[in-house]
């Protein structure tokens, strides 16, 4: 099929190109811009107004000229060709292979925007995923089909944590087909390489699909990258019955690309210059996680974002938190204390935890246990603060015990090795041994039957 070639480019502003005298152009249509150099750039139609089409170029507009460049419109949206051959392959941020492998012979072509899952068709996520991290499994439990982002900041070890989750994550007692889909947006070559070599080391690369838009790749391309990743994930999960873990990093770079486009369009900005529709845009990405009734596969999403200035109220973490089912927060102060993983469990949250733990899922005492650990640690943190103001001597004996608990909790429970894969039993056991340091009377959130059964001797004697 041939498409009309328009030589009528009249404006180039930032990543935007205005084409005039157009006919029959559709909203969201894929465009191909030919530069005077003969190079091609892909773009999409952001708006059509009578005979004018506004195109957002994924490859940026450097080298695009008003005269001498041309545009063609391809009569379809952006698509990804999918097949089981995606596994083990590496693509660029627009879905073009970059690993010297053969071209994919697609089973079908899918529009990367996807369609919303009918809420009626969803199945509620409830299967416990053991990540091997105590701070996650014990207190902020991940379940299959959840979207649980990591809120991090520059210089913190979020990539190591994500890679470790990808390495260790499994559903207890099940032998199913796993896959990892990795979407990189604007991360450094080194970071990207860290993931690739980790996947290679563990053999995970065989069942991984990678979409790589690196820091030096065109920024606007990032807008397409997570959508490509999720299109691949949906195919693997809902057509090939695989359990898919999607890691998207760094969502902050994605949002910045959106802001760039919005600014070029002179839209009325929302907070800090991000577009007013950022919430909706992000939800189109994050909501593509989940389970569907009658389907074996699932999509679990772990988006990673770096909070500008470590600020959780910045629009990117804020709007993400409003969409996802909790968040894992990486703390600079724990990191400074040398604790890995520096997960701050108090502001972290897994909203689906309560459906994933307890009898028949993890263990009957787990919910009570978790609620107690949170309460005791929160009290210990308060004691820590009080002690810094008033000195430890000002603390009551019980507060001092809580202070000690908080310290040991960080050192022994949160802290673990990068290759230490803790079972949930082990996690519960460490927790119980720490709780044993507190007077039994302080363990109000745990039912007596569990205290009798699991609390180590030490405090039973009291």
């Amino acid at each position, binding site marked *: 099929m041939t498409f009309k070639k328009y030589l009528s480019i009249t404006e180039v502003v930032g990543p935007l190109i205005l084409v005039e005298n157009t006919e029959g152009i559709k909203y969201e249509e894929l465009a191909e811009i030919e530069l005077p150099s003969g190079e091609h750039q892909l773009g999409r139609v952001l708006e059509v107004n*009578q005979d004018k089409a506004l195109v957002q170029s994924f490859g940026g507009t450097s080298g695009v000229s008003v005269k001498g460049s041309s545009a063609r419109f391809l009569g379809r949206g952006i698509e990804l060709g999918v097949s089981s051959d995606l596994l083990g392959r590496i693509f660029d941020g627009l879905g073009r292979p970059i690993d010297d492998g053969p071209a994919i012979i697609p089973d079908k072509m899918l529009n990367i925007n996807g369609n919303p899952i009918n809420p009626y068709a969803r199945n509620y996520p409830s299967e416990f995923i053991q990540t091997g991290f105590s701070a996650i499994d014990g207190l902020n439990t991940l379940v299959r089909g959840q979207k649980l982002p990591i809120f991090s900041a520059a210089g913190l070890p979020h990539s190591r944590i994500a890679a470790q989750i990808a390495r260790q994550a499994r559903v207890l007692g099940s032998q199913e087909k796993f896959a990892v889909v990795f979407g990189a947006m604007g991360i450094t070559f080194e970071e990207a390489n860290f993931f690739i070599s980790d996947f290679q080391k563990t053999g995970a690369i065989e069942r991984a699909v990678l979409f790589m838009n690196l820091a030096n790749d065109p920024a606007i391309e990032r807008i397409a990258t997570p959508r490509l990743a999720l299109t691949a994930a949906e195919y693997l999960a809902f057509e090939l019955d695989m359990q898919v873990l999607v890691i998207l990093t760094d969502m902050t770079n994605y949002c910045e690309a959106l802001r760039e486009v919005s600014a070029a369009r002179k839209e009325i900005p929302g907070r800090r210059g991000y577009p007013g529709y950022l919430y909706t845009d992000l939800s189109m990405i994050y909501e593509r996680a989940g389970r569907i009734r009658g389907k074996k596969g699932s999509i679990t999403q772990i988006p990673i974002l770096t909070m500008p200035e470590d600020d959780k109220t910045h629009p990117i973490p804020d709007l993400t938190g409003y969409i996802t089912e909790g968040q894992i927060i990486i703390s600079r102060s724990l990191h400074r204390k040398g604790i890995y993983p520096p997960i701050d469990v108090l502001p972290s949250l897994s909203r689906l935890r309560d459906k994933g733990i307890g009898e028949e899922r993890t263990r009957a005492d787990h919910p009570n246990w978790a609620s107690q650990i949170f309460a005791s640690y929160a009290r210990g943190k308060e004691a820590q603060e009080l002690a810094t103001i008033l000195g430890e001597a000002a603390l009551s004996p019980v507060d001092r015990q809580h202070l000690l608990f908080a310290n040991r909790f960080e050192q022994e429970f949160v802290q673990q090795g990068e290759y230490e894969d803790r079972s949930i039993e082990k996690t519960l056991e460490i927790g119980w041994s720490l709780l044993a340091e507190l007077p039994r009377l302080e363990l109000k959130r745990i039912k007596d039957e569990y205290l009798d059964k699991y609390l180590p001797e030490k405090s039973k004697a009291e």
Partner: protein
Amino acid sequence: MEQIKGEIIRVSGPLVVAKGMNGAKMYDVVHVSAMELVGEIIELRGDRASIQVYEDTAGIGPGEPVTSTNQPLNVELGPGLIESIFDGIQRPLDKVMEKTGNLITRGVHVNALDRSKKWDFKASAKPGDKVAGGAILGSVKETTLVEHRIMVPPDVEGVIAEIKSGSFTIEETIARIKDKDGQSIEVSMLQKWPVRKGRPYQKRLAPDSLLSTGQRVIDTFFPVAKGGTASIPGPFGSGKTVVQHQLAKWADAEIIVYIGCGERGNEMTDVLLEFPELKDPKSGEPLMKRTVLVANTSNMPVAAREASIYTGITIAEYFRDMGLNVAVMADSTSRWAEALREISGRLEEMPGEEGYPAYLPTKAADFYERAGRVVCLGNDNREGTLTIIGAVSPPGGDLSDPVVQATLKVVKVYWGLDSKLAYRRHFPAINWLISYSLYLESLRDYFNKITGVDWLSLRNKAMAILEKEAELEEIVRLVGRDTLSPRDQLLLESAKSIREDFLHQIAFDPVDTYASFKKQQKLLTLILNIYEWNLDALERGAEPEKLMALSIRDEIAKAKYTPENQLEKIDALSLKAREEVDKL
């Protein structure tokens, strides 16, 4: 009437502009492109109509047709609403799934209500009765919990010529009414009503009874009245949705309309899976049997999200008109406001604060004004109530957000969620120091009647303890707890007990999820009594340390887990506590 057919000239996201729309009316529904996407006219200039499209507009472009249906956006009202899940423009999502599979695709047209299902209609009016809009013709037992009253549509008046009981579909004629011109009007069980227009009633009354929710911090401290309005603003993860779900489960309304407006898909699934399993505390019937769901999740088209709260509220008004108590939960109204903002931005309207359109406060007020206690149309002067509870999701939890501000201007109850409480896992994380209810006074008589005591003074005493605690906390933070007088220390102990043993309520605990008002009364009285007894004992010369370390405290902490059918155990606990204090 001549059909109005125009042509698209512009597409920008959910906004489409068409020319050649002469004669089209504001807020009329149109079909866009050959796919017949549903849209609504929101602006007219000359022959140009700006249209918000309720479905994805990708692949649509200039030159494609737009046809007006000449009808405003309506909802269908009649048997079949209960237990349904609709999208923002009332498409039943189960039927949509039958047609399009697991994903929602475009251009699906399905009736909101099932046309083939037969309902057992029992007539209660008889031929010869003079009736007007709102008069009850009879009823259908729609579910075990809902007696669906079939009413004369608001604009019909006359004498019943014919009416029959029996098994009918919603489109079949159940009655014939002769109007004053002698015209015969056929009445079926199906009514339509434009969503943007409130349904009429005879008159508004001031709310005077409690919407009991089974949530202690709400019923006891910041109650909402039947027919009232409440708002829950809070940062992400602070507990808005859990509170809304709890209310949908346990509020003593006869009908619940739950609107998931621009929020998570899984939260709707949660309701769909859980409500059929949960039992109404009064009747023992599944809660789903009184629930209607409207779900336009965040990833569904943004314009339909804007419509969803109107779809929900209109359904609610219809049930109110039957003389029922209806409660609407809207989670979250911020997403509705953002949808307004997005469309407004594309229309290039002059923005107000934070880019929201200047008419945001008016629209918010109009919405909450649809709540109320009313005398319904019809001749039996029955009363119905409609309570609205809206969540607000301000950026960064910042309460200066325009949506929060617009809401607080109109609602009477404010439950302020606090992320600090949530981090401590104190749930519901409703901050008692900033929240308020303006219904306390109007509920005074009601409370006195159901409790048999001067309830508000008891409640105020507890509030005063909490407020004093906040003051003392400041001192403790500066100089430590030891410097406080024994009286103050006892107060802190009592405040802690109010917080932990009363206010703290875990939604997921099978017993604690719901507390009857009676249980709330017993628990609070117990805690306050112990405080009084302790103060008396202190006066008598009892040792403060011993009073602080009463062994009964452990049992009091667990008192909230007392099942509803064993409340006498709390009385027994009270006696035991008295004894222990008296011994000191």
